[in-house]
């Protein structure tokens, strides 16, 4: 018996958004009288962190600290329309809508500040800590709390904004497949190092090296979450997962987590990840959607590494010990 080591490669791209029916999302934003900005949405956070990322987009655009932003989302009575969270569209579509809404609100904010400070709105800037100040004369400033109060009680203005992102409907040409389905493409290249036990057929992923191009890392710690969780899911798909393990046969279907196998904490490889940024012209601060892509390249990288290790070409997922052993048997000339 031997443990055979191999290395495999895969490189992929992934579309942000998938439009065939028109792909809109809206955002509304308004300031309370104390200068907190409430972002109203109907978008869903599945755990990928949408609420946090769109709050960052709002804070950046308004020029205010994160503490001044609240995200109120996923209530169809209070939030404007969003197509939903799928197709790696959340950050891109909703982020863009929030930026547009925040930009409109910022304009009002600066206009009211201009009246308060008796200057031209064009001469104002935000300092990122909550003050709106005169460029080059920073002692002439007003805090957003005072400004929001003044807007409401003195100037009779709402500091608010409307945002919308729409990728227009596009129908594929049936004869050729010509279409414009997505907004931009993210990229990944994975190198997997595996060890195959030629007696048990068990594949262990030892290392995974991933280079990702994601447009812009809006929140690097959350990017790390997406890439590590995604790489794990890709590895899980590759080695374990199937609701019908003998597809197309319908039997042997797992019913719970004791039967539906996935890698546990003991099975995770050493990850080495690097990020490249080539901002997308149409992305929020250049960001592309990466939540889905991160699970893709590991699968073929592992398949290719298994071949490199032991000469077995697995063209059927998942790469179970049984399939590895049958492949090895075939290489050795055994047949059943």
């Amino acid at each position, binding site marked *: 018996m031997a443990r055979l080591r191999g290395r495999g490669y895969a490189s992929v791209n992934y579309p942000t958004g998938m439009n065939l029916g028109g792909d809109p999302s809206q955002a509304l934003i308004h300031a309370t009288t104390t200068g907190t900005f409430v972002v109203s949405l109907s978008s869903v956070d599945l*755990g*990928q962190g949408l609420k946090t990322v769109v709050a960052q987009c709002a804070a950046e655009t308004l020029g205010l600290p994160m503490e001044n932003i609240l995200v109120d989302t996923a209530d169809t009575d209070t939030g404007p329309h969003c197509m939903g969270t799928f197709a790696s569209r959340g950050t891109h579509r909703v982020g863009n809508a929030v930026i547009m809404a925040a930009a409109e609100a910022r304009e009002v904010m600066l206009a009211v500040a201009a009246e308060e400070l008796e200057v031209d709105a064009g001469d104002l800037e935000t300092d990122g800590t909550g003050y709106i100040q005169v460029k080059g004369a920073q002692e002439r400033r007003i805090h957003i709390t005072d400004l929001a109060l003044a807007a409401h009680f003195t100037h009779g203005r709402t500091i608010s904004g409307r945002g919308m992102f729409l990728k227009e409907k596009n129908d594929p040409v049936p004869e050729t497949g010509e279409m414009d389905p997505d907004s931009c493409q993210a990229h990944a290249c994975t190198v997997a190092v595996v060890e195959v036990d030629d007696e048990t057929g068990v594949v262990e992923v030892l290392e995974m090296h991933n280079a990702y191009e994601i447009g812009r890392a809006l929140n690097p710690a959350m990017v790390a*979450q997406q890439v*590590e*969780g995604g790489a*794990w899911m890709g590895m899980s798909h590759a080695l374990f997962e199937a609701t019908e393990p003998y597809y197309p046969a319908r039997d042997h279907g797992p019913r719970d987590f004791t039967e539906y196998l996935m890698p546990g*904490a003991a099975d995770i490889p050493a990850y080495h990840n690097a990020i490249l940024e080539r901002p997308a012209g149409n992305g929020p601060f250049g960001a592309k959607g990466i939540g889905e892509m991160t699970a893709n390249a590991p699968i073929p990288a592992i398949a290719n590494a298994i071949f490199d290790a032991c000469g077995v070409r697995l063209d059927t997922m998942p790469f179970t010990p049984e399939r590895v052993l049958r492949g090895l048997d075939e290489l050795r000339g055994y047949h059943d």
Partner: protein
Amino acid sequence: MASQVVNLRVNERSREFLAAPGTPLLSSLRDALGLMAAKRGCAQGSCGTCTVLLDGRPVMSCLVAVETVDGASVRTLEGVARGGDLDEVQSAFLEGFATQCGFCTAGMIMTAEALLDRNPDPTRAEVVEAISGNVCRCTGYGPIVDAILDAAARRRKEDAAARRKEDIAARWGTADIAATPGTADAAARRRS
């Protein structure tokens, strides 16, 4: 069979409620007591999202018939924070970005609490083993393991600091230990 009255000490408080025979502890916590932190990911002992401490041991509360543990003491995630302060495991999960959707988090944290109570200085392998019954579909587990190891380190540091204070107090008779929130107090609670 008729429902019966069950007594539990939950998060240091006596609670009394009615339960039909065979009602899972998880359902009693959630439906009778309104403690929603423990989650029902499978109701059959395969995911760990329902983990709570029963007399200090981690159990999958979906598998425990509540009438069989009458009189026991139960700790849920709601009972972990001290006053308003997060404990070390909670802080480590928060600061370590060890949560994504958060549905596994309660079970993970309770499993970690049980581990650190009996083994304040676990190895990575021991942490991995401790959470082997807890499923997470989002994180890939790495950040969770790191957070538990980090929590252990934080707790040891805090305990050491508390012990130092006690030493100083014993030697010099200073009596302001209790004024230091969450140190001597926490250390004493864990040692008891």
